[in-house]
């Protein structure tokens, strides 16, 4: 946990934060409403003797009392998908509507892609992209198990994503759930910090900036882009959004979030960020007993 020392000045109750990072995480699943309602899913869990707890901020997020969530009837039927509680936040902030065109720039293995499809009642077009073919095959497998029929799956580098395969030229919304240093997954993956270095943060930040810019460019005026990571490093979060503000036509907008969280930072090291970055959310493990996440919502202005 050495690398986390740099966050001592920005995290309230830093000791509680460190303590939470050391605790393993429960088994969370998201109810896949493409195939079953929350009620139906709960009825199956009850009938088959799987104890569960429903998240108060999102009725579709359940914590199961089982070590093998993949061997439950709800999983086999595609009623549930194993997804960390906090990772259900970005798709909700994106708020996609049935019939829209949505781009999931970094989609694999498909947790948020299928959540987007479910929020759209599986109606509309969700372009699920990833540059990693192996991970994309996991996405396809998961999407079929969950019965998502609204996905078009592409294998491109999101930084210079081409709209050429399609006959529309912009999206209504885009999600950039970026590749990152994954600091916030430490509770699920204790090795998460093994390869940690500042150089690494800076090199992924370059990729993140490229993907976010492309997402803004491919989204129509008035459309929404959500940027998220599962990391705490401001270099990969506020600094990436700041770069987008400086280079593309967009603004950071406010959103409601029923989970406890902290505001985005206004500065880090010697860099100042636009005051609108306050509207971004930093979710720390000790706040809701989850993993860590960063989410910013942008509106495209031209």
């Amino acid at each position: 946990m050495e690398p986390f020392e740099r966050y001592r000045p920005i995290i309230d109750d830093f000791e509680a934060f460190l303590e939470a990072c050391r605790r393993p995480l429960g088994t969370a699943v998201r109810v896949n409403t493409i195939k079953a309602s929350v009620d139906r899913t709960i009825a199956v869990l009850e009938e088959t003797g799987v104890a569960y707890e429903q998240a108060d901020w999102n009725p579709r997020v359940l914590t199961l009392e089982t070590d093998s969530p993949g061997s439950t009837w709800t999983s086999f039927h595609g009623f549930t998908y194993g997804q960390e509680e906090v990772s259900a936040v970005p798709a909700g902030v994106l708020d996609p509507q049935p019939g829209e065109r949505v781009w999931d720039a970094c989609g694999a293995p498909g947790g948020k892609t299928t959540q987007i499809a479910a929020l759209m009642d599986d109606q509309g077009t969700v372009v699920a992209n990833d540059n990693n073919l192996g991970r994309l095959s996991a996405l396809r497998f998961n999407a079929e198990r969950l019965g998502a029929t609204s996905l078009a799956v592409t294998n491109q580098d999101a930084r210079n994503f081409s709209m050429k395969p399609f006959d529309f030229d912009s999206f209504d919304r885009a999600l950039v759930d970026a590749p990152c240093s994954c600091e916030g997954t430490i509770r699920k993956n204790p090795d998460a910090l093994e390869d940690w270095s500042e150089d690494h943060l800076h090199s992924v930040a370059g990729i993140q900036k490229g993907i976010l810019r492309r997402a803004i460019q491919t989204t129509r005026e008035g459309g929404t882009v959500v940027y998220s990571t599962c990391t705490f490093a401001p270099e990969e979060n506020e600094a990436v959004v700041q770069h987008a503000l400086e280079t593309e036509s967009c603004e950071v907008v406010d959103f409601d979030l029923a989970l406890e969280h902290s505001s985005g930072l206004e500065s880090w090291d010697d860099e100042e960020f636009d005051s609108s970055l306050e509207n971004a959310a930093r979710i720390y493990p000790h706040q809701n007993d989850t993993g860590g996440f960063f989410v910013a919502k942008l509106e495209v202005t031209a």
Partner: protein
Amino acid sequence: MAGERSEGDDERASETPESGELEENVGYRFDRLPATADERRVEGRASREEVIEYFHDRFGIPPETFDEYTFWEKGAGKIWVYAGEAPSPIEIEAIGMTCLRTRQEHWKPTTDAVQRFGPYATDCVIELSREEARAFTDGQDQELEWDGDWGYLIAAHEIGVEPEGRPGRDGDAVEGGKLEPLGVGLYVHGELQSVVPKGRQRSVSDAR
């Protein structure tokens, strides 16, 4: 692909076309199915009408179930069902979900399509007990009584439904019927063979 049994993207499409006007199927891209056989341009390609008829004739799935969907072929005979927008042809990795294997004597629906659209089925649905369902899900073949047609059946069981039926208050996914489809089985000679693809098989453990 996650090893469906009897997969094999064989090159049936390269058989000599019966009519000189028909083009060969192109294996690396998605082509939208023609509405009817009359509009067919590619040798051996199923039409939208035939696909919908198949699901209706064999399983009683109402044709209007598919009103908002398009059907596509990629590879020899693999049919995909899609709810979104796309031009035809299109070269991408996947479009919607695979739903049916055509270009063989007995068309075969996929497990995932049967789970997705099977709740609307009324025919060729074999009801399994929980024990039988568990064996089926685990990929086991089993001897079972069945009075109906032989061939591909939808294996289903009752789960999470109270006697009076439990409606999905916040979704409509359960409206079709009380039985929940597990997947596709092949019924021949008194035996139901599970054709759940290897990667989809599970040893489901019930606490109760």
